[in-house]
């Protein structure tokens, strides 16, 4: 009988042990976050199955995005070049500042709606969102760090070890996990609540100049800056001569094909009122200078887009209406969403400024 008791005690211990282990795991399981596709939008291209969004993953990504220690001298976080009030571009900068007084060679684009994007950078050189951080982290004119050093810094940090564990189940820290976490955060940067979107949802209506601008837009711009993302993600030559100091050949750098010379990806025009200066090298300081380029300044080349072979006829009146329409693409709730701001700044968010009055 004594033996019987021992067996029971052992079984009991085992059951409690298993329950304890199971409970522990449940406690550490990251909490899933649903990615919502705005009504009327296409399905995203990012493969969420290989990197499911979780609260812990997003929180870790946000921490990394705003951490200057990922750069060589501690000064350049992703967020130093991708600023929320500029729709995550470098506000009011044609080129961005990087390590050791250097500049980037292109204008930092705004970051939003990245789940719908297949290729990244102005020339489409990066073929997966998870790969994107590798470029700025290691570029000598951006964060200038080695991946080994970045890993060493993260592994030495107790807080990161805890955050990686919370997001991925254990404390393993590697480039794959770091980049997946950053992807999770930037994937949540969805901008779909501008006045334009509200009009589309029937929650607001355009005033006359905006409506007229929208009509002109659909005729003259929509074939490249296609709704609802305001880009068709194609690469086009819009008659911009290369800057002699940058000598940027654009898409041809990736394909090696001369037909792709000076082609750049069509940028989204969402939040365009906030993303000045414009163009792949930030050469246009205002919307009116972009319009001036389309109607006069263009250098038509053999591979300039067929839609622009005769430049774009735009009257002053049309430019006025188009500008009114483009201002309706500003999503002030996106620009001020405290969840996208540096961690810890949730409570210092001011009331959203509505800038499309």
């Amino acid at each position: 009988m004594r033996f019987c008791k021992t067996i029971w005690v052992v079984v009991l211990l085992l059951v409690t042990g298993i329950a304890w282990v199971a409970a522990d795991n449940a406690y550490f399981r990251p909490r899933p976050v649903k990615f919502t596709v705005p009504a009327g939008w296409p399905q995203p291209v990012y493969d969420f199955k290989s990197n499911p969004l979780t609260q812990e993953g997003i929180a870790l990504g946000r921490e990394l995005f705003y951490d200057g220690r990922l750069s060589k001298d501690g000064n350049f976080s992703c967020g130093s070049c991708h600023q929320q009030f500029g729709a995550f571009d470098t506000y009011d900068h044609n080129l961005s500042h990087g390590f050791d007084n250097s500049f980037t060679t292109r204008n930092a684009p705004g970051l939003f709606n990245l789940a719908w994007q297949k290729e990244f950078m102005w020339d489409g050189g990066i073929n997966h969102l998870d790969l994107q951080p590798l470029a700025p982290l290691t570029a000598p004119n951006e964060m200038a760090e080695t991946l080994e050093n970045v890993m060493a810094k993260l592994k030495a940090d107790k807080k990161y070890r805890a955050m990686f564990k919370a997001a991925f189940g254990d404390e393993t820290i590697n480039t794959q996990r770091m980049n997946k976490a950053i992807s999770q955060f930037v994937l949540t940067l969805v901008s779909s609540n501008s006045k334009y979107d509200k009009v589309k949802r029937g929650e607001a209506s355009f005033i006359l100049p905006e409506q007229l601008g929208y009509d002109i837009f659909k005729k003259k711009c929509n074939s490249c800056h296609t709704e609802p993302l305001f880009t068709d993600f194609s690469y086009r030559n819009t008659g911009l001569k290369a800057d002699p100091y940058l000598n940027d050949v654009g898409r041809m750098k990736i394909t090696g094909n001369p037909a792709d010379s000076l082609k750049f990806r069509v940028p989204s025009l969402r939040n365009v009122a906030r993303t000045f200066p414009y163009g792949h090298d930030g050469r246009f300081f205002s919307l009116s200078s972009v319009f001036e380029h389309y109607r006069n300044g263009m250098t038509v080349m053999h591979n300039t887009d067929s839609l622009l072979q005769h430049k774009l006829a735009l009257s002053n009146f049309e430019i006025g209406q188009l500008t009114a329409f483009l201002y309706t693409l500003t999503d002030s709730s996106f620009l001020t969403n405290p969840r996208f701001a540096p961690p810890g700044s949730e409570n210092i968010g001011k009331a959203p400024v509505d800038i499309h009055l």
Partner: protein
Amino acid sequence: MNRFAKYIAFTGCLALLLSFTGKHPQEPHVVTLRFHSVIGNHSLELGRSYVNALGDTIAVQRFKYYVSNIIITDAVGKDVYLFPRRYYLVDAEDSASQSIQLKIPALPLKQVRFTLGVDSIRNVSGVQTGALDPLHGMFWTWNSGYIMAKLEGVSSSAHVPGQRFTYHVGGFKAADNTARVITLDLPPGTAPVDEINIAADINAWFKGGFLLKIGEHPICHSPGGLAVQIADNYKGMFSISSVR
């Protein structure tokens, strides 16, 4: 006492069951592929000067390449052992990286086949781990894709800063593909194989269907025509030096 007997029987059954589900007791046989670098008839020492097949004096500082998707055929020509989705980075600087252990029964073997490089699917699937971790410096960040093989060093023929020649050969898209399938036949024999020694001859990079003159092409850093020509050359760099 009756109950006691039952417990004994129960534990016995449990133990038996566990022994069935447990691992096969017999240790599987391992075949080792061992890579070593040579230049012509010399075995390669990093940093030391040699004259290459085209007469250029070179000192190699870095020599790395990916080996993946290994396929081994036995001598009867019947059984084929596949090792898909396994990637190894062979690095002349790191002797541990030069031997690859494969679980294959003790058999006479006929052929070794592998891909030098990384298949296209891994080039478009985000960040990978292990040998494919971008941390190893074998990944282009600005034009996504793996560097399949890397050869760097100094040569008086390289008229560039530091007289450094740097060949980073990559590209996975159709016409630019630099991954190459290598097929090597083992010398015929009936003895079971434990170890296959494979020589990688750097001379093949320079002298193949294409003549890679360092004076003309000291640098290859992007996918395209030159990379493909070098890849066609390095396809011929391997040979089986001995089998045990």
